[in-house]
């Protein structure tokens, strides 16, 4: 995994580390719970878990400011939790209930929050990328100094519209950070089977867009790179590409036979690179927290996730009329 900067020793405060620990743990426990509810038949259809990739979105959120925007693909639960959307509302959308963030109209892949400047979850690979440039265009037009984080995968990086967007973003100096979450696989296809260059961020060079590869298993590395990217965009220099090298532990979705990689490969990542474990060690080694402190956080998170699950199970089915609402503006 080529990554330019991996932050090892740090002078990051205990509070900051605890914040990352908490946020990443929330995503992990939430996703584990979603997996359980799926297994129980309470969630149907497609459900793409973010487990293993937590440091990417938590690190980048730490580099974001109020009013910055984010837009991503269908693997979106982590992004929503990290930008502060209600876990109960997310879980209830997974179960297709009235209390879901899209009132059961969207499901796992399609949720939004105007309040948190989260422009969705998008089920079509690559489709969100031009939208991200449009959001950045609107911010630039309004002159408000905001930046848009446009997330997409290594697989999505082969969609033609990504490159149409790179060109426009560079041409118009749009304040957009393109975040390529390279987890090495697009469904059952390893990156090398589908992608002509190992480092996808280098494709930005052709458009005059600077970029870098980042160790996506280390939240501090991600945050630092995020700050560089954001500073570049806010200073009016146009887009920036972060290729965050990461890994998903679970299947592509809940119905993945996982026949395209070895169990050992996954196990090695979990044991040697786990983003949450890394922060946990930093906290303990730096004497920022005791085992008991961390246990208290774990307990807290468990409680939040259980509440979300209870809410998602108790919330009623949406009313039948919802099939026909929000197709056009009400007359």
């Amino acid at each position, binding site marked *: 995994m080529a990554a330019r900067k991996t932050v090892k020793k740090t002078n990051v405060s205990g509070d900051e580390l605890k914040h990352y620990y908490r946020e990443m743990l929330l995503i992990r426990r939430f996703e584990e719970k979603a997996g359980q509810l799926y297994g129980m038949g309470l969630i149907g259809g497609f459900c793409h878990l973010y487990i293993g990739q937590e440091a990417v979105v938590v690190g980048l959120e730490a580099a974001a400011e109020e009013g910055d925007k984010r837009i991503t693909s269908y693997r979106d639960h982590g992004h929503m939790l990290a930008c502060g959307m209600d876990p109960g509302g997310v879980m209830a959308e997974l179960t297709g209930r009235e209390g879901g963030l899209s009132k*059961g109209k969207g499901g796992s892949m399609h949720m939004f929050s105007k309040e948190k400047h989260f422009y969705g979850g998008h089920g079509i690979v690559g489709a969100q990328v031009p939208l991200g440039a449009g959001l950045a265009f609107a911010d630039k037009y309004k002159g408000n100094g905001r930046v848009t984080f446009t997330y997409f995968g290594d697989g999505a990086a082969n969609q033609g519209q990504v490159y149409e967007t790179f060109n426009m973003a560079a041409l118009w100096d749009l304040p957009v950070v393109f975040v390529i979450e390279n987890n090495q696989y697009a469904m*059952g296809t390893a990156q090398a089977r589908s992608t002509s260059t190992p480092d996808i961020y280098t494709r930005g060079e052709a458009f005059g867009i600077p970029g870098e590869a980042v160790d996506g298993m280390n939240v501090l590395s991600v945050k630092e790179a995020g700050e560089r990217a954001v500073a570049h965009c806010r200073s009016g220099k146009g887009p920036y590409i972060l290729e965050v090298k990461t890994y998903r532990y679970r299947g592509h979705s809940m119905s993945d036979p996982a026949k395209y990689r070895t169990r050992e490969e996954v196990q090695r990542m979990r044991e040697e690179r786990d983003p949450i474990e890394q922060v946990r060690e930093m906290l303990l080694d730096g004497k920022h927290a005791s085992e008991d402190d961390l246990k208290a956080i774990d307990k807290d998170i468990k409680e939040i996730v259980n509440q979300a699950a209870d809410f998602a199970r108790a919330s009623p089915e949406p009313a039948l009329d919802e099939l026909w609402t929000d197709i056009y503006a009400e007359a």
Partner: protein
Amino acid sequence: MTMIEALRDAMDVALERDPSVVVFGEDVGYFGGVFRCTAGLQEKYGEERVFDTPISESAIVGAAIGMAAHGMRPCVEVQFADYMYPAYDQITQEAARLRHRSNGQFTCPLVIRMPTGGGIYGGQTHSQSPEALFTHVAGLKTVVPSNPQDAKGLLIAAIEDPDPVIFLEPKRLYNGPFHGDHTGKSVSWASDARGDVREGYYKTPLGKARVTREGAAVTVLAYGTMVYVAEAAVQNSGIDAEVIDLRTLLPLDLETIVTSVEKTGRCVIVHEATKTSGFGAELIAEVQEACFYHLEAPIERVCGWDAPYPHAQEWDYFPGPDRIERALRKVLEV
């Protein structure tokens, strides 16, 4: 044999017989396809003939058109019909018209396979039925098999066809017939005669419908998953309906349809796709033009509602047997 195995068998036969056939798409080669339709084919025919592509639908189809124009016979998979939109430009403006605008010098013997339809909790980006977007385009043929026997024969015929064929595979039928009751036990193709697939080479001709149930009271026109849902509705109602599985939407087997409607004098059309400008509208127009003086009642349509395919309310949206039964009764009331 499941429909998945039947489709794989068809590609196997075509790859074996004709060295100009190639099979490719996202996750198609090494992984064998997300629905496993191409499992084992890369091992058998090598990476030159069965291969993976990047997630680039427009270029996948565009490149296939180039191959076809230059003497090859590509059989391409678009992973879900919902993902074909980036390729729609290539399909309509290049594939469909190459023969015409080159005055017949260049042709496009290309098959684009796509899993279609709902009933799998896929929500709005994994459940669409876009067949009318293809039947609207002159130069394309559109096929929708409803069982393993037909799927194999039709796919071989499509691969051998001299023109571009859109091959829509109802994904709800991949592993067994589906009669529209999602709470019922799932049925496998092993227990259905239509899952009994002949070995080796055979073709099921494009443009030929099949009467799956003979009857005298009303004609039901259906295709794909809706063939079974319609059969269930007919059975529940006890009405002596004739059910026609269209199999190919374009070219349409109007003869079989007209023969039936002239006999029954009544017609119900069923499809999963949204109602407005759906293929049912075309069928109504054709039937009334050809059978106006035989019709005893207005033709009824049972379709998906004019709304995005839902996540939470799939079974309120899906045209189930009850809705079809109501339509059958309604056309018989007149």
